[in-house]
């Protein structure tokens, strides 16, 4: 059963940012969203995940659909006494994790490097029960080695979990095996 259907969809707040889009997302599928700056990639992702209403057109989501949403700039306050383990527990992530993630468990999140935190955040979302992963520029702060690690984690996600991936990195999108939708400014 299709998870999500967009018809003549345009995202935007006060004006449409992109030309009308028609697409569907099936279970297990990866859909890449790319386009020039200002084409509304992030706004489209927020529209697809129901955080803001469509500017025009429609989005139909399968009832009971659960999202795992990564913001373009994940929140990492410097005044919270949270270890990486606390951080994962907040999302209900299982205690078992790969060695490179488990090695971060005892560190405070505000003392991780940008790349370490990004990978921790992505792992948390990948492990969260959800039907669609919505990732906004997931390669931010990641060096080539960690981008490879992210691709591994994405490939190992639970069967049936779809992914919506916004990225300016065409090579990364290609390596995810995504069907790529290029946004045209309206």
């Amino acid at each position, binding site marked *: 059963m299709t998870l999500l259907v967009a018809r003549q969809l345009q995202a935007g707040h006060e004006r449409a940012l992109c030309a009308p889009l028609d697409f569907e997302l099936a279970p297990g599928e990866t859909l890449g969203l790319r386009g020039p700056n200002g084409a509304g990639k992030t706004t489209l992702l927020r529209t697809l995940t129901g955080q803001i209403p469509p500017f025009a057109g429609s989005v139909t989501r399968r009832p009971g659909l659960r999202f795992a949403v990564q913001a373009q700039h994940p929140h990492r306050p410097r*005044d919270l*006494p949270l270890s990486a383990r606390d951080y994962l527990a*907040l999302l209900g992530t299982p205690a078992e994790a790969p060695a490179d993630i488990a090695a971060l468990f005892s560190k405070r999140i505000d003392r991780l490097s940008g790349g370490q935190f990004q990978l921790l955040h992505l792992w948390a979302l990948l492990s969260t029960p959800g039907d669609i992963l919505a990732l906004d520029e997931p390669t931010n702060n990641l060096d080539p080695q960690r981008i490879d690690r992210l691709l591994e984690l994405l490939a190992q996600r639970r069967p049936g979990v779809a992914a919506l991936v916004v990225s300016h990195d065409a090579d990364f999108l290609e390596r995810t095996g995504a069907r790529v939708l290029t946004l045209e400014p309206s």
Partner: protein
Amino acid sequence: MSALDVFALPFLNGLLASLLLGGIGLLLFARRDWLAALGISQIAAAGALIGTASGIPALLAAPATALVAADLKRRLQLGALGYGVMILAGWSTVMLLAANTPLGDALAHALVDGQLYFTRVEHLAALLPLAVALPLLWKRLSRALLRARLFPEHEQANGQPDRRLQALFEWLAALLLALGTLTLGVMASFALVLLPAWTASRLAPNLRLAVLLCLSLALGAYLIAFELALRLDQPFGPVLVASALILCALTRAGHTAAMKLTHERTGTPHDRA
């Protein structure tokens, strides 16, 4: 009647209020809502004075006023601005009532300085349900509040920001701050909310230890203040604020020194140790 008999009940009231304020302070701080403590405390003090002037017991009037203020602030979504308005409105009301009503001046002083030694069994009866409720609700409240701060997009996409839990937290905080104001005074309540939470949030390596450190600092500041205020015959509120300031400053200094020592021994940068 021995000194123990005279001071046992006030001591217990203050102890409970201090621990509860320290605990709720950590959540207010995590929510960046610590200014709420001063705003709600000032409004509660004003409510207590208005109640007294109208023949309503302060123990009813202060929590009721604090609850109304917290609810209004939440509905109007004023953020820190709302607390700024509360501080100004509360202060102005307290000062005007103090100047123009019989007993107002004495009560206003008591609310600002702390009236711990005059607290009664009614204060204990009001604090005890909160002392039961807060630990029971702690896990759910802290999880909901932290998720809302760290994963707002995720929460919004899944329709999960639990408004009822957030409202419950705000009411609990308002009640606690009102009772804290009536027991310890405006500034002492504010100090117990802000200083231990700030210190623990900065130093603790994880949430569990932050809770422990926060409660220990609140408890330590209270015990020191209780002893010193009695021995030196000083007003309780200012002594508590001073003891909290000094204890938290010493804790931070001790932590920095320990980190430097670790750095010297291991070569680890001290901000990463």
